């Protein structure tokens, strides 16, 4: 019932509607677009190095003859997947750690929150920068884990403080006296009651992760070649952006559109899920 109300509010929200349509179009472009182009992202056209956009190569070619259209869409696929996975991991971890710390209290709480503080103080940029170039050859999923590991701490603090008040509610107490194990109470009664916060947080985490991946890749600390992402493409394009603008403009434009669409949805979701909130 509530989900229907929320969906109705979301569809009535103009921002969220535009954001949703834009995101759907972008995802369609990333996953269906490659089938429409004439070249695969691994193909190299040795007759066209650095050619500007034309009928054959829609978005031009790179200095080694790769078709920009195919490569950019491949990079966007990777960016989207990384964004979604990081958001899923980070928000899930934040919910679990925060809810456990808040519900159990005592030394569990102290230990977990101390870990949160430590991770906040650790130089995340440094750690990712040192580890990720050494993942060359390993699966890019490790990079997702690295990004997610440093993205959940602040949300888990919020979750913890909300759990502290949820713990005292009657239905949670009732569940406890019915003999339901505590971990089940957390998963069944506490976490679902935080869902609006978590959904909003996950949405904003997606755009945060997309930007974070691009930023790290900009310095070569992110996705490693031969794999591509929007970040690595922007980094390469930026070097020759004045002479060969198509190398820079397409990935950069798509990155901005992607982040903008996700942020619009996140903002609309916040209005729909939590009409009273103002943050």
């Amino acid at each position: 019932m509530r989900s229907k109300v929320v969906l109705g509010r979301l569809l009535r929200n103009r921002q969220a509607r535009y954001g949703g349509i834009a995101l759907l179009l972008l995802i369609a472009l990333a996953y269906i677009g490659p089938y429409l182009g004439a070249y695969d992202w691994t193909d190299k056209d040795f007759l066209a190095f650095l050619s500007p956009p034309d009928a054959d190569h829609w978005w031009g070619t790179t200095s080694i003859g790769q078709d920009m259209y195919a490569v950019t869409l491949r990079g966007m696929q990777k960016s989207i997947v990384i964004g979604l996975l990081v958001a899923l991991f980070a928000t899930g971890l934040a919910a679990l750690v925060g809810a456990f710390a808040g519900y159990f209290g005592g030394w569990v709480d102290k230990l977990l929150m101390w870990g949160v503080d430590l991770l906040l103080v650790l130089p995340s940029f440094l750690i990712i920068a040192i580890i990720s170039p050494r993942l060359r050859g390993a699966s890019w999923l490790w990079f997702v884990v690295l990004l997610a590991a440093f993205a959940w701490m602040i949300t888990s603090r919020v979750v913890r403080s909300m759990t502290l008040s949820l713990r005292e509610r009657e239905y949670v107490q009732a569940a406890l006296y019915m003999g339901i194990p505590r971990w089940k109470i957390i998963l069944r009664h506490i976490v679902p009651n935080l869902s609006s916060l978590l959904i909003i947080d996950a949405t904003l985490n997606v755009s945060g992760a997309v930007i974070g991946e691009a930023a790290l890749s900009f310095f070569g600390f992110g996705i490693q070649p031969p794999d591509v992402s929007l970040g690595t493409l922007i980094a390469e394009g930026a070097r020759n952006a004045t002479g060969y603008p198509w190398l820079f403009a397409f990935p950069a434009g798509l990155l901005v559109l992607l982040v903008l669409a996700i942020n619009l949805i996140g903002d609309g979701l916040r209005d729909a899920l939590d009409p009273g909130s103002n943050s």
Partner: protein
Amino acid sequence: MGKFLLRRLATNLILVALAASLAYMLAATTMNPRGAYEGRQPPVAEEVIDATLDAYNLNDKTPVFERYLTWAGGVVTGDFGKTWNGGSVNEEMGRRIMVSLRLLLIGTLLGFALGVAVGAYSAVRQYRFSDRAIGVSSFVVMAVPVFLLATLLAIATYNLNRGLGFTLIEYTGEYNPRLSGWDQFLNRLNHLILPTISLTLGSIAFYSRIQRNMMLDVLNQDFVRTAMAKGLRRRTALFKHALRTALIPSATYFAFAFGTMLTGAIFTEKIFSWHGMGAWLVDAINQNDVNSVAAVSLFTAVCVLFAAFLSDLLVASLDPRVRVS
């Protein structure tokens, strides 16, 4: 209060020590400063390399724990060790902190002040055209990552300068060392234009969103109505009563941003070639400079904890409810 502060100081010290030690261990075990000496032409004898690396406490033949103890002993007495080529980390750090300060102080303050002003204005003009225009542009600005914005600014300026035929706006470095006196001061300001724009635009967008929401919340509250009912002009009521209360959340963020300012501008510093703290981290990682990496990490940890403390203080000074409890 004193006891609380002391306990907090103690936990913070432990956190800093842990963070710095972990960073040192990670850097010392994964980085290879020897590589910079081994590849030289003409080749350097291994004993010479060993002696040099020993002198800098960077020799990977020494057990890592022994190196760590030497390093930690130095840090406790205020000596951060040597860079990969024998320079003093302390001197380098001092110089770079000043560079970052000159680059970031104006941008950070300006971003906050303008952001709050824009957000408050937007709230007062809710649903008018200007409010909508501000809202849409701040959304677009927030979707442009800072490294993209900085690159775009640099490209635009390059083309502008080429079109004009002379350098109107500088887009790389901190100043021209050949100038002196008044000319050099103007030159420094010119070099500041682009990095400052790239730093402030994002924070203006960010603060204006928060400030607008908070301001809207406060505008409908009783105490603002009471202030106007007792005969204050709308302007005075808005400034003295509404804005002050609505400042609390953005002030918290600002305190945090101000505390972590010095190491926060990695991209801006790298793209516009300012040799500050943020750029140092990237350079040190690329040069396998273990002691510098550890020093930057320690400095960052101290900054983060200082920032958290600063934001608590600021909230307490703005919010009477916090002070009373």
